[in-house]
């Protein structure tokens, strides 16, 4: 084709990404090695059905990541689906790629005769919407389209503006993919690369491969992913094995197992032929481990170019012609040289480079090896600082090789090493996911010995560790995860086994079940068919069907659950989709179940955007049913201004659960519906006018003026007290008895909508309220009984973490410094702040600060009572920790003696603001806190896409102890502050506008 002088090459109808990568490899090779003049490359994948995946199982996002290395001029989709079905996937492609977006769907879905029915006009209309919504750059038709179709489409989009795509997406992230995409960016915690599929490292795995038992080998891979491996390392380097054949076979097998192949692979070999074999059958964007300058620069460049054409990231060892680097200087020197060659001569994206500065064995008995640990950590620090974009990895098990046979010591060493290496900037490592103790959980004596060994503080550390190792017996570890599901009753075990595809116990379980039922057939009809039966057993006589969901990224559901119960009691059929529910699942369920109403819930501000998205999707799909909006952050104003205009059917904001029945009943009754809708549309119109008028009218100070008017604190007479500890302190299994005493019951009664009337307000006075007093007493008694039970049975676990760091304010931000190095070093994190601009009194940051987080984790999410109590305990834990901080940990207020009721009325010195609340409305600040204190790993509290904390009964905040510090509301802010804030955070303005949407004093231009 190139000889025939084509203008561009189109690789299209890709349903297997691995296949298309062959074509892309060939094209790139022609351009690079055969002197062909490069022409634009166009790439178009095919999503085979509404699951949004290619035939080989990749999501559209993963597909984009897998082929973007060829620098396509445009990327998009064609075939298999009609335009309407293709829309969500085209939208996602646009959100992932830096290239133009191409879209040429079929003329609808084929009818029973395999023919396409969509008319040119219909298709043109749908595609015009794509164009008008800014989704596409190139448009056309695939199967079933005719010249008439193309003519109609061309006519329809003639005046539409093409999609704009100037901003580079994810410039600071490493992108990888399996069946699903993976982004490693500045906010990613440490990445675990599973190490057990390594014939050199795992004897068991090696035996399985040699015995050709690939089924079991696959199970090893699966277990690792289940245990948390985010990337899977595959190594077949063993003298007795044909590496190329084994790699090919195993990688192909992995591809067939979606639970494993959803994560990216790391193709690991010292033999480049084996690496090539792995690359050839990997469809996602994988990591190659590894290459180095060992064989000289030419060889290095050759290999790097090949890897680049496959689009893989690469691990580069600190190894050169002279050998392996052991000292800091050599490590840095080799990595710098490799970086320059890769970036400048091979054209590698720095984000795709991972250095392995050699983790070498400690405790070998040779003095010159004693600094190996320190050297790695120091080199890591320097490399991260001087070579922008790169990441650091390494094989952690090397470090403890001298202690083979003693897993307890080895695992402790790994944890201690990682604890420090991650602080120094290590991004990922090959580890046995699931077998790493938490740093603070290591037996203190063992931990100290490991510290001594790592930092070379005690020449006798090795001997002492060996002694310690002998003194304690090897602990047997049981596989808790397995034990957990094996503890269920036989019916549950059977369905679990079926769903998860675990056949190890299926024979004995079926046998056990057979004895419980009169006839073997009952086993099949009973537990085995359990899932299928569930959905059929719904009765049809009800007031209507309501689909309820907490939207994607949000985990809070107490309110939604109450609405569900209340509607259920009023004879509505309620389908509760639970929390973190993506839009397509809500819509699919609504369509399948013929829902009459959809109800969305959310507690944190980012959920508001997701609700808008759902409303838009409902409109696009032409749904004809009302949408209800509820949850703590939602408001009539937001519903009226932002959501209702997106959906032409009724959108109603529902204040609380008791209102939901009234609204739902009215909406399902023809006459009432009209009345209600008339009222609502009139009212919402008023609110909208009011809102826009308000935006115009309100006066704001410029950011500079607001800064000038900042609160000036009295620092002269303020001596910050140095906390008794610096760094983090973890609290695990905190005494619930203690927390119980500190519970603030008022919000608990608010959950139940039990509010005492003057003079009987608040707890405990509301018990005397003539109307709700009795009911409140009953709920309270139930709560206390349940609470005692929960405490007795250890059903609830309270974990928390507090961190103290030296810090300073800089303009509107807080700089945080390493506890060891103090305020004269480089800050290790920055917490950003926002300033009030609406004209009124100013308050501001500017105090010494510390932060803390904690959670109460629970097993039973079902009962609203348990959730309400867990929430209360989490808050009580916050009070308890804050109290201990004031009196003991920070110790600035040793004399304080307050009753619980005083605590809730904040009669103490200092404040505890939290991200997502009025003093700092930006939820993304949580990411900084999480990263700084390693919260996820230490406490198990994680953040969702929308930065909600999970489990839901969690609280976080920052401590300020200056006596003049006070809570304030940032309120609306103008564009100058948003731009300034975005640049301080290193984010795009549109990104910042998204997270601060509710605080904007203007309409952001990027939104429609």
């Amino acid at each position: 084709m190139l000889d025939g002088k084509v203008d561009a090459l189109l690789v299209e109808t890709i349903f297997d990404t691995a296949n298309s990568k062959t074509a892309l490899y060939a094209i790139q090779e022609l351009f690079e090695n055969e002197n062909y003049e490069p022409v634009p490359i166009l790439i178009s994948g095919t999503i085979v059905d509404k699951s949004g995946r290619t035939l080989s199982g990749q999501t559209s996002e993963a597909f984009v990541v897998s082929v973007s290395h060829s620098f396509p001029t445009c990327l998009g989709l064609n075939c298999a689906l009609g335009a309407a079905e293709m829309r969500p996937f085209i939208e996602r492609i646009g959100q992932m790629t830096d290239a133009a977006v191409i879209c040429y769907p079929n003329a609808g879905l084929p009818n029973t005769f395999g023919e396409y029915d969509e008319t040119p006009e219909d298709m043109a209309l749908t595609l015009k919407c794509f164009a008008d919504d800014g989704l596409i750059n190139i448009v056309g038709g695939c199967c079933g389209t005719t010249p008439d179709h193309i003519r109609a489409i061309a006519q329809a989009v003639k005046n539409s503006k093409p999609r704009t795509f100037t901003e580079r997406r994810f410039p600071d992230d490493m992108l990888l993919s399996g069946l699903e995409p993976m982004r490693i960016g500045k906010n990613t915690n440490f990445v675990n690369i599973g190490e057990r599929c390594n014939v050199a490292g795992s004897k068991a795995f090696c035996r399985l491969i040699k015995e050709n038992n690939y089924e079991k080998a696959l199970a090893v891979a699966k277990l690792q992913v289940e245990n948390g491996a985010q990337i899977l390392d595959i190594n077949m380097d063993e003298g007795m094995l044909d590496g190329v054949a084994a790699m090919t076979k195993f990688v192909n097998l992995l591809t067939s197992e979606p639970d494993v192949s959803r994560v990216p692979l790391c193709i690991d070999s010292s033999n480049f032929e084996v690496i090539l074999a792995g690359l050839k059958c990997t469809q996602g964007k994988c990591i190659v481990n590894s290459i180095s300058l060992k064989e000289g620069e030419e060889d290095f460049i050759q290999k790097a170019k090949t890897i680049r054409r496959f689009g893989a990231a690469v691990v580069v060892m600190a190894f050169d012609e002279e050998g392996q680097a052991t000292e800091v200087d050599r490590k840095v020197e080799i990595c710098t040289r490799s970086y320059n060659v890769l970036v400048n001569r091979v054209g590698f994206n720095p984000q795709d480079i991972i250095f392995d500065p050699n983790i070498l064995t400690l405790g070998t008995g040779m003095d010159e090896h004693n600094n190996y640990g320190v050297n790695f950590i120091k080199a890591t620090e320097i490399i991260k600082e001087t070579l922008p974009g790169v990441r650091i990895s390494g094989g952690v098990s090397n470090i403890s090789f001298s202690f083979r046979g003693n897993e307890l010591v080895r695992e402790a060493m790994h944890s201690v090493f990682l604890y420090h290496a991650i602080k120094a900037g290590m991004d990922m490592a090959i580890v046995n996911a699931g077998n790493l103790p938490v740093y603070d959980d290591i037996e203190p004596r063992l931990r100290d010995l490991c510290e001594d060994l790592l930092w070379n503080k005690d020449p006798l550390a090795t001997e002492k560790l060996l002694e310690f190792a002998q003194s304690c017996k090897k602990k047997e570890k049981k596989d808790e995860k397995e034990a957990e599901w094996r503890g269920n009753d036989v019916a549950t075990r059977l369905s679990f086994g079926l769903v998860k595809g675990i056949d190890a116990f299926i024979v004995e379980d079926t046998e056990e079940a057979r004895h419980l039922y009169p006839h073997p057939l009952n086993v099949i009809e009973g537990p085995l068919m359990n899932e299928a039966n569930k959905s059929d057993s719904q009765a049809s006589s009800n007031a209507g069907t309501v689909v309820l969901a907490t939207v994607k990224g949000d985990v809070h559901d107490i309110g939604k659950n109450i609405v569900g119960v209340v509607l259920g009691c009023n004879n509505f059929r309620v389908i509760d989709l639970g929390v973190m529910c993506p839009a397509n699942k809500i819509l699919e369920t609504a369509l399948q179940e013929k829902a009459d109403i959809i109800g969305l819930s959310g507690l944190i501000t980012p959920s508001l955007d997701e609700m808008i998205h759902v409303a838009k999707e409902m409109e696009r799909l032409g749904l004809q049913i009302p949408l209800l909006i509820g949850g703590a952050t939602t408001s009539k104003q937001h519903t009226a201004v932002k959501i209702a205009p997106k959906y032409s059917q009724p959108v109603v904001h529902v204040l609380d659960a008791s209102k939901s029945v009234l609204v739902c009943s009215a909406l399902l009754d023809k006459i009432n519906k009209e009345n209600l809708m008339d009222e609502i549309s009139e009212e919402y119109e008023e609110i909208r006018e009011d809102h826009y008028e308000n935006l115009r009218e309100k006066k704001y100070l410029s950011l500079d003026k607001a800064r000038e008017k900042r609160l000036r604190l009295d620092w002269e007479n303020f001596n910050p007290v140095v906390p008794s500890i610096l760094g983090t302190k973890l609290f695990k299994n905190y005494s619930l008895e203690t927390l119980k005493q500190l519970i603030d019951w008022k919000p608990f009664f608010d959950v139940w909508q039990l509010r005492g009337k003057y003079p009987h307000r608040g707890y405990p006075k509301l018990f005397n309220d003539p109307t709700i007093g009795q009911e409140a007493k009953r709920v309270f008694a139930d709560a206390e009984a349940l609470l005692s039970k929960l405490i007795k049975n250890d059903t609830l676990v309270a974990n928390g973490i507090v961190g103290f760091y030296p810090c300073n304010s800089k303009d509107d931000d807080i700089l945080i410094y390493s506890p060891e190095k103090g305020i004269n070093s480089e800050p290790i994190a920055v917490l950003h702040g926002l300033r009030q601009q609406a004209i009124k009194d100013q308050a501001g940051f500017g105090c010494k600060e510390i932060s803390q987080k904690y959670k109460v984790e629970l097993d039973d999410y079902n009962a609203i009572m348990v959730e309400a109590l867990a929430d209360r305990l989490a808050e009580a834990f916050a009070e308890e920790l804050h109290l201990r901080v004031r009196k003991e940990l920070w110790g600035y207020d040793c004399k304080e003696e307050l009753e619980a009721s005083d605590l809730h009325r904040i009669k103490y010195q200092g404040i505890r603001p939290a991200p997502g609340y009025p003093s700092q409305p930006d939820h993304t600040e949580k990411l900084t806190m999480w990263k700084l204190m390693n919260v996820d790993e230490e406490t198990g509290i994680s953040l969702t896409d929308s930065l909600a904390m999970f489990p839901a009964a969690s609280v976080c905040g920052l401590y300020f102890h200056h006596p003049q510090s006070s809570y304030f509301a940032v309120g609306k802010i103008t564009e100058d502050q948003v731009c300034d804030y975005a640049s301080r955070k290193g984010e795009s303005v549109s990104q910042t506008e998204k997270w601060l949407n509710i605080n904007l004093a203007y309409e952001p231009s990027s939104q429609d």
Partner: protein
Amino acid sequence: MQSAEMEDIEKVLRGKENPLLECKAQACPDLLRRELSSLFVSTNMNDGPLTVITFVQRTKYDMSAWSESVEDEREEVIENFIKSAKEMCSELRRNSQWADFVEPNSGRPFFSPYTNATFFETDERYRHLGFRIQDLGCCKVISHHKWGTHVFVGSIFTTAPADCEYLQEIISQANKLKEDGGDAHVSVCA
């Protein structure tokens, strides 16, 4: 508009504006009237005159912030509102009119029987009465056209017509309340 007229009448009656308190009566807007029928179930709210008296106390502290002083001031103004509202209601009843008010902490009617319905200070229905409800993300705050969020707002409802003499007298008495320095905390408001 009727409410604008009312404002003028008030000004005439009052002579000058009270810097700390704004008590005014307006005919209940139709949209609000329907909503109120679920709050006050013992009275027929659909027909006949219905008047809303908004009792706005200016506060020293910004009610969108949160501190011990804010809490304390709230307690005070709520106490003051309940006291005044009770007096106004009994005065209206003496004139054979139905009257009730919303207890701010529970959002429930003070005299009428219990229902599920509530009407809090941050209820978006206050928009009908000329207030703005600002959304702070996790919570909301009511805002007054002159005093912003430095206010506490309470409401009293009655079947007395907004322009009748005894009602206007009650309003003008109420507006004199804080000027006389009857309350301790008034002195702190500059």
